[in-house]
């Protein structure tokens, strides 16, 4: 198609005979191809193979096997397939990072829905939670990725647009309050609705998770999230092997590939074993409270029952499972 034809299409003229539908452009083709490197390489190879009418597929598709490419969605895998998948990921972690990871896929507990309550009167903005989270969750150090962002707000306001993230020195500063923001684990999550491939979903215990192997990296969820909680791996995540946390979960802190979304998952691999999220363990002032929303005697339920509770951007109807409170 000549450049003249293209310019005609861009400026349609009424009553002119329409040109036939053009074949999809290279960009359009790429948009439907998985962004994940292995998958894309595989598809490219497969496309090339199809072009030579049934030629050998193996060439150029080294990083992904048939089983990888044609495997079912995570939620449809049976126990054996899941175990095989985890073993495969552990082997890959050992091969690529030299770390013997223990990757698990704990199931959601019955009768449990997790919630977080954060005491805004107690938080001093020391960022201990932010770094403990990074250490626990194997997030990239360079470029740096943090799930938690601590906002410094002027006392008496909740003007998030004027929030300061780059404060330094001794905290808390006079006439300021601090508000750590991470994934709000919405009960009505806009990110899940935005995902075109079901790579992110809400688990029965309320945790919104991402399957890093299923994500195509389109970043629609990032645009849909009103809390800025979803982060994209622009580069290959880099962590020194000595800093890698070997205690890993499939839907949580296993090492991510480049080109996928990730976010806070309430330390899924910890909390489903009864442990606390790393941020609460790290908080030196006891501002963080984590627990089971369905247990009327739990800490978070007592807080919701008796304290002044604030939900971030309540008007959007996302129904967060992350509550801020004053006491």
């Amino acid at each position, binding site marked *: 198609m000549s450049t003249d034809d293209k310019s005609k299409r861009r400026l349609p003229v009424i009553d002119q005979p329409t040109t036939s539908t053009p074949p999809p452009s290279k960009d359009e083709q790429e948009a439907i191809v998985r962004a994940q490197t292995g998958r894309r390489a595989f598809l490219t190879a497969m496309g090339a193979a199809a072009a030579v009418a049934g030629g050998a597929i193996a060439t150029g598709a080294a990083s992904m096997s048939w089983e990888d490419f044609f495997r079912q969605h995570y939620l449809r895998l049976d126990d054996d397939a899941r175990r095989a998948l985890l073993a495969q990921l552990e082997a890959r972690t050992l091969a690529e990072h030299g770390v013997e990871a223990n990757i698990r896929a704990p199931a959601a507990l019955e009768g449990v829905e997790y919630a977080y309550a954060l*005491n805004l009167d107690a938080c*001093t*903005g*020391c*960022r*201990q939670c*932010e*770094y403990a989270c990074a250490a626990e969750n194997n997030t990239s150090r360079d*470029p*740096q990725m*943090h799930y938690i*962002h601590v906002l410094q707000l002027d006392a008496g306001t909740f003007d998030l647009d004027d929030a300061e*993230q*780059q*404060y*330094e*020195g*001794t*905290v*808390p500063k006079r006439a300021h309050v601090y508000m750590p923001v991470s994934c709000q684990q919405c009960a009505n999550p806009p990110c899940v609705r935005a995902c075109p491939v079901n790579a992110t979903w809400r688990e029965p215990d309320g945790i919104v998770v991402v399957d890093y192997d299923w994500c195509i990296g389109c970043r629609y969820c990032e645009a849909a999230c009103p809390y800025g909680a979803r982060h994209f791996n*622009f580069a290959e995540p880099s962590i020194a092997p000595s800093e890698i946390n070997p205690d890993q979960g499939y839907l949580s802190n296993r090492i991510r590939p480049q080109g996928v979304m990730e976010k806070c998952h309430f330390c899924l691999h910890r*909390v489903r074993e*009864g*442990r*606390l999220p790393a941020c*609460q*363990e790290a*908080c*030196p*002032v*006891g501002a963080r*409270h*984590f*627990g*089971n929303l369905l*247990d*009327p*005697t*739990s*800490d978070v339920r*007592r*807080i919701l029952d*008796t*304290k002044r509770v604030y939900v971030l951007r309540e008007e959007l109807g996302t129904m967060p499972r992350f509550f801020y409170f004053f*006491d």
Partner: protein
Amino acid sequence: MCSRCVALVVLVVALGCARETPHPISNTDALPDGAAADRVIELVARTPYLATYPCGAQCHDERVPDPTRRELVTFHAARRIAHGPAIHWCDDCHSITEPDHLVSLDGQNAISFDHSDELCGQCHGERHADWSEGMHGLSTGGWRGTVRRRTCTACHDPHAPEHIQLEALAPPRLDPRLAPEAR
């Protein structure tokens, strides 16, 4: 055995060794009904962290404390007392007769240093109620299973309670390529 009994097996734990016999927290009745049996609350002992404990063996078995209100020059000189209006003195909280213990306001009950909540709760009742239900204070260990809670003095210096000042860790490093609009 009812679920509450299971939940209220409260142990005083030190790092490896308990110095005191297990001691139920004072207001067990204030805990909500039907407290889940999946939680066991442990109080983290305070005494292993006190530099001059046991006070009796280290000094006060020999030296009888002087309850007179005065400027402290020879001992405890570094101790600043700035807890509310200037009406408090050592023997309001510390037992004269039992130097290894605190004492209730009425002078009747000795209180362990590991249970400062019983002492503080005499005045700070509302806060104490919050703490005993897990709404205030630091807890670690787990949201179920073993929950480890700290008593008041783990965070607050009772002699001069103030807001805690901490050094903030480094601000997030924003990659200019990824966030050109970053301030």
